[in-house]
């Protein structure tokens, strides 16, 4: 079962988030942590901007020939001894993974970080089959302990403070010294490592996501900083790769280009600590590796984005830079968005995957400040696509009635300059009077969303155009 979206309640979610002091403290780290590091990483690489262009072009080329590369990829995986499974929906993907795990009589399934697993609700599905999924990425492990969804696509537990994590570890990791010092992140990491080590060895199946699927070689690639992905995929009987279809790239050369912008955009690292290439199962003579290698390629609404205003969204390489730089994300965090993908990329992708009727708030809850687009390594025009969603909502009459009628009244006048001048002239004089000598209003009917929090500056009185015409007439007369 996939995660039930709370996106329709975005405003309530945001309200809660804004009042959550722990969350607000944790979000302060996002602001400070990612932005400067990305700037410095980009400055150290003179060709960074050119690489962004080339990453965009590679993804565009792949999307234009996706059918071809999917076939080529499948052939290459098969030739390497692996299996490719195509899943149209979340349910199909869960069923495919479940069937493999069942056949192998899996009890424990270790998992590297995978947003696709979140999207299809894989953990709940495996638990339903009597298996125990164990998250091995530190952030994912933490939120699994708390039974929460991730709040960020590369830093799933970024909404938590280290004090909250320490308290969860004390609650769950029984049998350890009660007085142990858990004040430093590195001790938290050490403890998680120690606990997870046994789980790695006991796992029957390992599941990872993929940052890239390489058509020419049938290779899947993950980038991680903890090395958990390697242990997840090499120790068990089978390695299952979960990926959505837009993860394809034609060649290893293409990967090497995109890798140069991925970590720099995400965390400001030149490269992530581990970049792991997997091609098929263990071959005769290999010292280690899984006995079986499966790739589940998920569509779940993505192919329907091809050829539409939203195709460019499929370039996304999931670096998280857009949310790291988003003032709205900084204010409310990832959970407020109500589904798997938060921030600007979520505001575009989520309506495509769960429907704009459910996710309609997300593309509206943006100031269109454009910072997301300015840092996107594959130059996705995120504000433009959010605007396209607003257009779809407007066409389908999903825009709130008050907004629609407000727009239509304003539009009526704005298209008729003479009437507009009369109407606005009266309104501005009234407002100027209401502002009195203070120059501002503490309350304005119909704009409570504004005046609840800030004053509304009073207008100066007569409009510029009115004053201008008078002044010009006087100039001529003089």
């Amino acid at each position, binding site marked *: 079962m996939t995660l039930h979206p709370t996106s329709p309640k975005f405003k309530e979610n945001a309200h809660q988030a804004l009042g959550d002091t722990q969350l607000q403290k944790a979000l302060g780290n996002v602001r400070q942590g990612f932005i400067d590091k990305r700037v410095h990483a980009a400055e150290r690489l003179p060709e960074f901007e050119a690489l962004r262009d080339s990453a965009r072009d590679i993804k565009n080329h792949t999307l234009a020939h996706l059918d071809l590369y999917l076939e080529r990829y499948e052939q290459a995986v098969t030739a390497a001894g692996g299996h490719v499974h195509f899943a149209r929906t979340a349910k199909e993907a869960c069923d495919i993974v479940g069937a493999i795990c069942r056949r192998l009589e899996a009890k424990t399934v270790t998992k590297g970080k995978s947003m696709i697993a979140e999207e299809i609700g894989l953990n709940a599905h495996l638990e339903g089959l009597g298996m125990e999924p164990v998250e091995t990425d530190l952030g994912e492990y933490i939120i699994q302990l708390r039974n929460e969804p991730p709040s960020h696509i590369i830093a799933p537990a970024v909404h938590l403070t280290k004090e909250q994590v320490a308290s969860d570890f004390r609650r769950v990791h029984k049998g350890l010294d009660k007085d142990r010092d858990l004040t430093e992140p590195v001790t938290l990491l050490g403890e998680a490592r120690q606990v997870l080590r046994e789980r790695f060895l006991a796992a029957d199946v390992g599941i990872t996501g993929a940052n890239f699927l390489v058509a020419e070689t049938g290779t899947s690639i993950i980038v991680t900083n903890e090395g958990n992905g390697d242990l997840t995929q090499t120790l068990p009987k089978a390695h299952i790769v979960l990926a959505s279809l837009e993860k394809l790239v034609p060649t290893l050369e293409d990967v090497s280009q995109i890798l140069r912008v991925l970590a720099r955009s995400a965390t400001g690292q030149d490269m992530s600590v581990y970049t792991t290439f997997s091609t098929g199962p263990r071959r005769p003579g290999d010292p280690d590796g899984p006995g079986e290698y499966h790739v589940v390629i998920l569509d779940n609404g993505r192919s329907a984005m091809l050829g539409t205003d939203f195709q460019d969204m499929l370039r996304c390489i999931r670096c998280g830079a857009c949310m790291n730089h988003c003032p709205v994300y900084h204010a409310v965090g990832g959970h407020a968005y109500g589904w798997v993908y938060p921030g600007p990329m979520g505001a575009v992708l989520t309506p495509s995957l769960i429907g704009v009727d459910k996710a309609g708030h997300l593309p509206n809850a*943006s100031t269109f400040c454009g910072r997301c687009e300015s840092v996107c390594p594959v130059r996705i025009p995120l504000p433009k696509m959010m605007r396209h969603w607003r257009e779809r909502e407007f066409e389908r009459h999903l825009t709130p009635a008050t*907004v629609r009628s407000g727009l239509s009244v304003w539009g009526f006048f704005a298209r008729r300059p003479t009437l507009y001048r009369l109407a606005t002239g009266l309104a501005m004089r009234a407002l100027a009077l209401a502002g009195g000598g203070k120059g501002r209003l503490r309350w304005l009917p119909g704009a409570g969303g*504004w005046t609840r929090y800030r004053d509304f500056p009073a207008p100066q009185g*007569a409009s*510029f155009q009115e004053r201008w015409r008078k002044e010009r007439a006087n100039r001529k007369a003089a």
Partner: protein
Amino acid sequence: MTAEAAPEVARPGPRVGLFVTCLVDLMRPSVGFAAVKLLEDAGCMVEVPVQTCCGQPAYNSGDRGTTRALAEQVIENFRGFDYVVAPSGSCAGMIRKHYPELFHDDPNWLPRASDLAARTHELTSFLVDVLKVRHVEARYEGHVTYHDSCSGLRELGVARQPRQLLKTVAGLELVEMQESDVCCGFGGTFAVKYGEISDAIVTKKAENITASEADTLLAGDLGCLMNMAGKLAREGKATKVRHVAEVLAGMTDEAPIAAAAARRSGSA
């Protein structure tokens, strides 16, 4: 005002249509007159054709029909000018970047939209980049901090130009705030529709403004200025908030945004 190459010497200056913007027109006409002064001092012949709005509120609300109607009105009314200048990065960005997109599949209107787009500029970048103005004759006593409004900054590259001119204002000291390039939370109708989130963003902005210890906040877009001024006023801060054009033109007699008018003798 002085320019490297003074165009007014050789021939009559360029004919500029002032796109005053709906907010300046209705809320703060003094910004429009400051823009006129700056343009005339730089040798331009300024005219103000009949106008209402560039259509951005409708555009960002997903209402393409109304947007097109308003865009056609602007394209029609601003025919024939050498340049169209707006004291706003947001409205200039709408015309420069978004009009051609709006008409991208309309062979009749696209050439006209693109032609207008190419002639349209934000005020400070027009002065510095097109007219090569290097210096303004103005005086302003105070510590000033400048907020980079998003559309001007990211759609039009406005950042260096206003600062360059501000540094030539006598008596003015420019102090940078932290995160001057981060959104103030205005976002047009966003500020009303998502008022609570908008407030969280402008609260942070107000902290940065206050921490800069500047006594005056300037920016190039009235929407952002009204948002920040409204927040600072609600918090009881004494920061004076003005459009950058007012200070560059030396026209600061009118009360700052959201501030009470000072008692003055003489003309109202």
